[in-house]
C-alpha cells in the first residue's frame, strides 16, 4: 500500500502495538533543557529508575539564560534550574551543551547543527516547538514532563497514531515573502486548532525551493496550527545540509552514502492518501503581520486592523479582547503602527540565513531613535558564523544590540522582556498575551519585516524596498 512520509517513519519505530489500540513508539533522539526536565529526573529518583539510553539523550540550557552576559545568572531560581540540569546530566551520564560550550544554543537550533536531527528519525523534547526538526523528514514532537520521564526511563512513548494532513504550497514565492509568511498564512487559514490531531506534511514546488533554515521556520510553527508535528520530505537540499558543516553526529563516508540511499526512500509515495488536504497558492501572497493575541490573528501587511465581526472563525468577543489587549482600533493601517521594540531571534528565525536576511535590510541604515532592536543568534555556532561574516558589525553600526545565544525575548523567562504597553515586531512564534513580558504587545513577522520596522519605527511593506 502506498504510504506517506509520516507513515513510513512511524512504522519504522513501532516497538509493539498495545492492548487498547495505542502504540509503543521508539524514540531515537531525546533533547532536554533546564525548564521541563527537573521534575522528570526527580521522578526517576523517587522510583529508583535509570535512564535507559543516556547516549540518545542530549541536553542544553536556553530558556532562562541571560543574553548580555550568560555567565551572570543573577536570578536565583533560574540559576537553580541550570545547576539542577548540570547535576542531573552528570549523575545520569547525559551529554550537556552547557553555558561554557561553544555548541550551546536554543535546543531546536543545535539539534540540526550537531547533526542529531536526521531524516527518518523520531525526535522528542519537552518543548512544543520540537516540530522544527520535521524539516529533515524526522517525526518530531513536543512532550510534557511526564513524557520526558517516560522517555528517559524507557526510550519509548505510548502514542495514538495521528492523522495525516497534506499542506500543498503551490506557485512561486514572490519577492519579499518568506517561509515565515507561508506558515503564518496557513495558520490564518486553518486556525490555531486546525491541525489538532494531525501530522502536517508540507509539499509543493515552493517548499522544494526553500533552504533547510526556511523549512525549519515552517515546521517550527506547525504547533501554532495545533499540530504536534510538521514534516517535509528529505531531498538533495537536506542531504547537502547534513553532509556539510561541523556536525559531529552525522554519518560520514560510506555510512553517509548508505544513509542517503535509505533516506531517498522516505518521501511519500505518489498514490499515498491523506486524511485531509489543503492547497495554498503562494504566488500572489503578501508579507504577513499578526494583529491579535494568537498566531491565527494574522493578515497581509497591506491591510487594516479588522472589525470584531470581520474575522471568520473567531467570535467577536474574542477579537475584541485581543484588540483591547493589543491597544488597536479597527480600521488602522498596519503600516501606521508605531513600534517600540524589535526582536530578531527565537527558534523560528535565529539561524544564520535569518540573520543574513535581517542584515541585508539593516546595511547602511539606522534603527529609528524610538526603537530598541535586539538581534539574538539561535546558537553560539550561529553567533560565530555571523561574526565571521561581519553581520554583527552591520547590526551594531545600525544601532541594534548584538547578543549571546538563547531564547531571549521569545518567552521572556530571562532578563529580556517587554514593558507593559510596549509594541514589538518579533520574529518569534507566539503573540499570546504577556508572552514577551507582562502587558507587552507582540506582532509576529519575518526577519526582513522586523528589520525594516526597526529602521522606520513602524511596519513597512518590505516589497516596496526591493
Amino acid at each position: 500500500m502506498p504510504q506517506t512520509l509520516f507513515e513510513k517513519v512511524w512504522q519504522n519505530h513501532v516497538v509493539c502495538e498495545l492492548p487498547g489500540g495505542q502504540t509503543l513508539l521508539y524514540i531515537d533522539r531525546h533533547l532536554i533543557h533546564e525548564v521541563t526536565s527537573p521534575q522528570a529526573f526527580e521522578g526517576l529518583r523517587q522510583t529508583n529508575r535509570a535512564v535507559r539510553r543516556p547516549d540518545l539523550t542530549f541536553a542544553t540550557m536556553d530558556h532562562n539564560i541571560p543574553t548580555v552576559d550568560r555567565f551572570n545568572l543573577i536570578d536565583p531560581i533560574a540559576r537553580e534550574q541550570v545547576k539542577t540540569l548540570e547535576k542531573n546530566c552528570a549523575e545520569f551520564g547525559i551529554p550537556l551543551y552547557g553555558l561554557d560550550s561553544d555548541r550551546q544554543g536554543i535546543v531546536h537550533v543545535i539539534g540540526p547543527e550537531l547533526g542529531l536531527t536526521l531524516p527518518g528519525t523520531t525526535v522528542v523534547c519537552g518543548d512544543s516547538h520540537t516540530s522544527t526538526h520535521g524539516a529533515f523528514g524526522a517525526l518530531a514532537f513536543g512532550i510534557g514532563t511526564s513524557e520526558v520521564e517516560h522517555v528517559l526511563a524507557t526510550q519509548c512513548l505510548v502514542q495514538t497514531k495521528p492523522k495525516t494532513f497534506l499542506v500543498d504550497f503551490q506557485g512561486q514565492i514572490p519577492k519579499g515573502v518568506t517561509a515565515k509568511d507561508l506558515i503564518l498564512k496557513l495558520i490564518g487559514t486553518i486556525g490555531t486548532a486546525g491541525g489538532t490531531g494531525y501530522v502536517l506534511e508540507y509539499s509543493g514546488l515552493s517548499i522544494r525551493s526553500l533552504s533547510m533554515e526556511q523549512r525549519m521556520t515552517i515546521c517550527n510553527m506547525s504547533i501554532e496550527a495545533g499540530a504536534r508535528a510538521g514534516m517535509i520530505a528529505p531531498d538533495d537540499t537536506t542531504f547537502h545540509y547534513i553532509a556539510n558543516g561541523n556536525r559531529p553526529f552525522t554519518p560520514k563516508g560510506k555510512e553517509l552514502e548508505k544513509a542517503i540511499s535509505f533516506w531517498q526512500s522516505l518521501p511519500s509515495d505518489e498514490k499515498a492518501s491523506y486524511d485531509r488536504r489543503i492547497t495554498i497558492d503562494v504566488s500572489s501572497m503578501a508579507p504577513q503581520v499578526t494583529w491579535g493575541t494568537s498566531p491565527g490573528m494574522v493578515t497581509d501587511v497591506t491591510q487594516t486592523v479588522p472589525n470584531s465581526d470581520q474575522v471568520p472563525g473567531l467570535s467577536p468577543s474574542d477579537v475584541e479582547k485581543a484588540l483591547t489587549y493589543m491597544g488597536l482600533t479597527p480600521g488602522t493601517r498596519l503600516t501606521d503602527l508605531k513600534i517600540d521594540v524589535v526582536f530578531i531571534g527565537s527558534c523560528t528565525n535565529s539561524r544564520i540565513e535569518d540573520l543574513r536576511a535581517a542584515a541585508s535590510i539593516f546595511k547602511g541604515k539606522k534603527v529609528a531613535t524610538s526603537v530598541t532592536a535586539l538581534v539574538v543568534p539561535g546558537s553560539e555556532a550561529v553567533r560565530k558564523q555571523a561574526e565571521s561574516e561581519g553581520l554583527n558589525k552591520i547590526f551594531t553600526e545600525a544601532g541594534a544590540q548584538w547578543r549571546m545565544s538563547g531564547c531571549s525575548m521569545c518567552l521572556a523567562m530571562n532578563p529580556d522582556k517587554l514593558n507593559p504597553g510596549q509594541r514589538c515586531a518579533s520574529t518569534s512564534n507566539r503573540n499570546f498575551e504577556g508572552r514577551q513580558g507582562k502587558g507587552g504587545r507582540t506582532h509576529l513577522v519575518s526577519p526582513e519585516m522586523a528589520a525594516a520596522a526597526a529602521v522606520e519605527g513602524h511596519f513597512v511593506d518590505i516589497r516596496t524596498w526591493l
Partner: protein
Amino acid sequence: MNSFIEHTGKIAVLDRANIDTDQIIPKDYLKSIKKTGYGEHLFQDWRYLENGQPNPEFELNQKRFEGASILVAGNNFGCGSSREHAVWAVLQAGFRVVIAPKKVLGQNIIPAFADIFRNNSVKNGLFLIELTDSEANELMALVNAHEGLQATIDLPAQKIILQFANGSQAEGEKEFAFQIDPMVKQHFLEGLDEIGQTLKYQNEIGRFEKKHDVQI
C-alpha cells in the same frame, strides 16, 4: 496517579476560547524544579491586578465560584506550549475536571482541548470532558442561572449529573452524557503508572533496539 471514579463539586465558568498555556501559568512561575507551588499562580495575569490584589473583573474571582472544582471553559483550552506546569496549576488550584466544547465551523473542527495539554492531563489525573457546543452553552447558562450549582462526574456511567439546590426552579437533576477514549477511561479508573506499564515491555524494547539502527 490516583484513580478517578467519581467526583462531585461546584462548577465555575470561564467562557473564553483558546485559553493558552501562557495564560494558565505564565512563564515567570516555571522557574522551579518542583512539581508543586503552581496553583496560586493559575491565570496569574488575569487573576491579579498590578498591585497584587485580586482582579474583580476576572470571572473566576467571583464569590459564587469560590471553591469550585469543575471548570467549564471555551474551546481549544490549553493550546500553546508543552509545559506540564499548566496541568499542575489547574489541579493545584483545586480543579479536578475541565469541561470544554468541541466546535464545528464548516470544514474546521476546533477541538475542546489542545493535544499536548490533553496528554499531560491524562498523566496527572486532570479529567477532561468534551461536550458539543450547544451542550456546553446550556451548561454555562445553567451555572450562571443557579448560584453554587454542583455536578457529579460519574466516570463508569460517563455522565455529568447536575444537582440543583432544593427550591430552585429546575429542582431535581439534569444529565449530560459524554464520550471518552476507552484507554483513557481505564487509565483513570485504575490510576495506572504508565512508566511501570511500559517497563513490562523491556524485552520487546531490547529486541527492537537490536534491529533498529538509530544512525539511519
